[in-house]
């Protein structure tokens, strides 16, 4: 008998992907809770790796009618010493199985593995981009073109051959334009027929030819052009400025906190924009644009002038990132020290140059581990920013001391509006 061998190994995988998505959608609230729970005490790298989560089975159970209790009879293998009529103590040795619980127990919580993407999606799902600062710029988005049907006038470059030929054909059929082969047939007939018939045919052919000339193959009224409409096109690219104080007072721990925050922000932005660029600006008493490696690990020392970093950012924006084309995000990390004389320059730069072009500006004040966040005495920079806030500048600011605080703080900053109005901290 014929036998077939089919190699299925190369079939596209992920056949159950859709079922999985349905499952995740259904369990969304539960999974999200579990994701938050497990992200509290994880490193960023790990969080982005996904991993195993455990959810309760509420709403995910598949109930069946099943019986329990009553008298039970069972036949078992492996009798060693029992004889008929023996009484075995319940849940004792040797008869443990007989008092086993009904099937289906122990299924009240459910563990499974989430992939990296699923994990990050779940984590970021209830967050949303703020558009605090740039409201008036939001309307000045660039314009794009979109197809919108056909038109009778337009530029020759936009002519729609398909549509034009179709209309011409319809018109020719409707007006009964003689076909070339019909005329050819008549002309062939002329070749061998008598005189009377010949005159008749010639007249007919002339009439047809005249009609042929009257009804053009393609008439100007057939011509159609593709029509385009302009529509606002959302800006699909973002640039993220990372500003960090790298003066001597910033410890490794503080830089680590800042790095975690930047990474989260980056992941978040890449989920929302097609194209995200990062600019690293580090500063002591003067600022420079550096690469990532230098930014986090390069040694530097000196005083602290925040205005230098803001100035650098302003210059980079002006030279490379036109605010109309780019969504600009900035996150500044510092231990809060700033030279006393710099305050006026900082506030002027921020309110006049930086904030008007930024979507979002976050200030993260990092502290040494161990202390209580709320006991941190307000630093000079914190006091300054708080004053700016009070005057209406759209700034977000948070203090962080521990790694574990990064996620909650981030979450807090980007919480979907409506749920909770953003409040100053």
């Amino acid at each position, binding site marked *: *008998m*014929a*036998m*077939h*061998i*089919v*190699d*299925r*190994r190369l079939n596209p*995988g992920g*056949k*159950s992907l*859709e*079922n*999985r*998505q*349905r*499952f*995740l959608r*259904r369990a969304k609230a539960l999974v999200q809770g579990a994701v938050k729970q497990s992200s509290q005490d994880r490193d960023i790298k790990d969080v982005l790796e996904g991993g195993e989560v455990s959810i309760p089975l509420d709403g*995910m*159970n*598949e*109930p*069946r*009618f*099943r*019986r*329990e*209790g*009553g*008298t*039970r*009879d*069972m*036949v*078992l*293998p*492996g*009798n*060693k010493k*029992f*004889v*008929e*009529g*023996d*009484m*075995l*103590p*319940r849940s004792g*040795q*040797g*008869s*443990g*199985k*007989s*008092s086993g619980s009904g099937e289906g127990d122990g299924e009240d919580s*459910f563990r*499974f*593995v989430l992939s990296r993407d699923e994990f990050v999606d779940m984590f970021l799902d209830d967050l949303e981009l703020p558009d605090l600062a740039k409201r008036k710029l939001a309307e000045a988005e660039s314009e794009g073109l979109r197809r919108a049907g056909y038109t009778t006038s337009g530029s020759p470059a936009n002519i729609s051959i398909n549509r034009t030929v179709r209309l011409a054909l319809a018109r020719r059929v409707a007006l009964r334009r003689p076909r070339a082969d019909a005329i050819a047939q008549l002309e062939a007939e002329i070749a061998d027929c008598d005189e009377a018939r010949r005159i008749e045919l010639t007249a007919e052919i002339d009439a047809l030819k005249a009609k042929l000339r009257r009804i053009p193959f393609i008439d100007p009224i057939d011509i159609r052009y593709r029509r385009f409409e302009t529509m606002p096109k959302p800006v699909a690219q973002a640039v993220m400025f990372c500003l960090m104080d790298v003066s001597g007072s910033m410890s490794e721990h503080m830089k680590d906190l800042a790095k975690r925050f930047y990474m989260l922000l980056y992941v978040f932005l890449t989920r929302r924009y097609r194209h995200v660029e990062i600019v690293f600006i580090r500063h002591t008493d003067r600022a420079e644009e550096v690469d990532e490696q230098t930014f986090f690990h390069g040694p530097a020392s000196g005083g602290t002038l925040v205005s230098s970093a803001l100035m650098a950012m302003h210059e980079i924006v002006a030279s490379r990132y036109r605010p109309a084309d780019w969504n600009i995000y900035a996150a500044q990390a510092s231990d809060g020290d700033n030279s006393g004389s710099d305050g006026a320059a900082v506030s002027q730069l921020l309110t006049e140059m930086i904030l008007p072009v930024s979507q979002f500006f976050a200030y993260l004040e990092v502290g040494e581990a161990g202390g209580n966040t709320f006991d941190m005495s307000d630093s000079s920079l914190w006091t300054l920013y708080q004053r700016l806030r009070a005057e209406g500048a759209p700034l977000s600011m948070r203090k962080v001391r521990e790694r574990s605080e990064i996620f909650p703080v981030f979450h807090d900053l980007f919480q979907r509006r409506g749920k909770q109005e953003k409040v100053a901290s």
Partner: protein
Amino acid sequence: MTATAARLFEGADWDFSTLQRIHDACEEIARSELRLDTYPNQIEVITAEQMLDAYSSVGMPLFYKHWSFGKHFAHQETFYRKGLIGLAYEIVINSSPCISYLMEENTATMQTLVIAHAAFGHNHFFKNNYLFRQWTDAEGILDYLDFAKSYVAQCEERHGRQAVEQTLDAAHALMSHGIDRYPGKKKLDLRTEEKRAGERRAHEASAFNDLWRTVPTGPAKSTETLNIERRRKLLGVPQENLLYFLEKTAPRLQPWQRELLRIVRHIAQYFYPQSQTKVMNEGTATYVHYRIMNRLHEQGRISDGNFLEFLQSHTNVVFQPDFDDPRFSGFNPYALGFAMMQDIERIVTNPEDEDREWFPDIAGTGDVMAVLRNTWANYRDESFISQFLSPRLIRKLRMFHLHDDPEESAGIRVDAIHDERGYRRVRRELARQYDVGYIDPNIEVVDVDLAGDRRLMLRHAVVKGAQLNEVDAKRVLQHLADLWSYDVSLVEVDATDTVLKEHVVSPRRHAVAA
């Protein structure tokens, strides 16, 4: 040993021509020696991930989409990755051609074992056992599943994913009560079924006339004139196939919802024979692979080393731990089935006096395969065990029967052991453990309160005091009420018609039925 034939393979590696050789060698033995009668075979090589896929959609190659399959997949995957479970070596589908899935990482020996086991053992059983012949349609199943899949997808498009999901959830909860247990109905013909579904829809579309909605219907007939007998007859109650009852009678279901119930019901029916023949099915397949592998070895087509590898796998498969072993989790259907098949072989060829007394019909008749083929065709687990479990096997497995009465404070009584007084009782009890009529709770629709609030009334006949788990019963009844769209009550009554308990559930506001 006569090393006449060439080896089928050397070592562990294989390719498709090896598989073909293995299949042909197995087929020769299966036809000429065991005289098996099988569907044509289709062998599909799959990866571990695909095997997991198949696990989560009840082993079928194509199935409609539902979140519960995703849940099972996630669950299985977690266990598999942790190494808590190994995957099956094969999955075989009762279809024509009979599809066997082989895992790509099996060695050549394992592939031989699996082909002998699935492509010939299971295949023969599927084609010949009366339950499968009666209840399943091997030719039509794949087409029907294809239809089901696209129908469900269509419904989602038209009526929204949530509505479809709710209906399927409800139908799945009632799946084990969507089965016709007694023959008499027509055999399932899934191809016609698919065509009929299409015709029903076409008819609805062509016969639709909105005017009918506006025609006044006149005063309703007094329901009192319908006496109870007549009403019950019209409703078709008592009815134990709950899904069938809902499909035909639920007042407010949309046509597509009825079709979905029908699909779930047909699929449940398709799997019904498998749940009744686990021991026999696996016993048959294991016996067949054992015979084929031994013959291949005798013919010299499998090397001694590979044969040892086979013996090791085989021994693992038929391992039966004792009841007090931590690994014990009930009877292993492979072990029990294989032991019984071998025992029958012994009785037929080499009976003792005891066997002649217990099995006069088959003892010493000499033709093992004739007896076995007849058994495979005409029995299910329950009848097979109650007919063929021999005293010798009861002694060998040292079976005993425990009776656990919660009223008895002294403990659990040992009711029978492997002695002269106990053989029949042990055998009867074991057979009963495999009786689906006994395992599934006996629940049926008994009436509908047509005069009053249209409450649907169900009845659970309690056997041996085992009532329904309350939490789960409530959940299932909730689904049932949502489909019925009026209240549903379930009474649990014992043998003396005393009501032990009554559950009443009302449909949810955003119920399934519109």
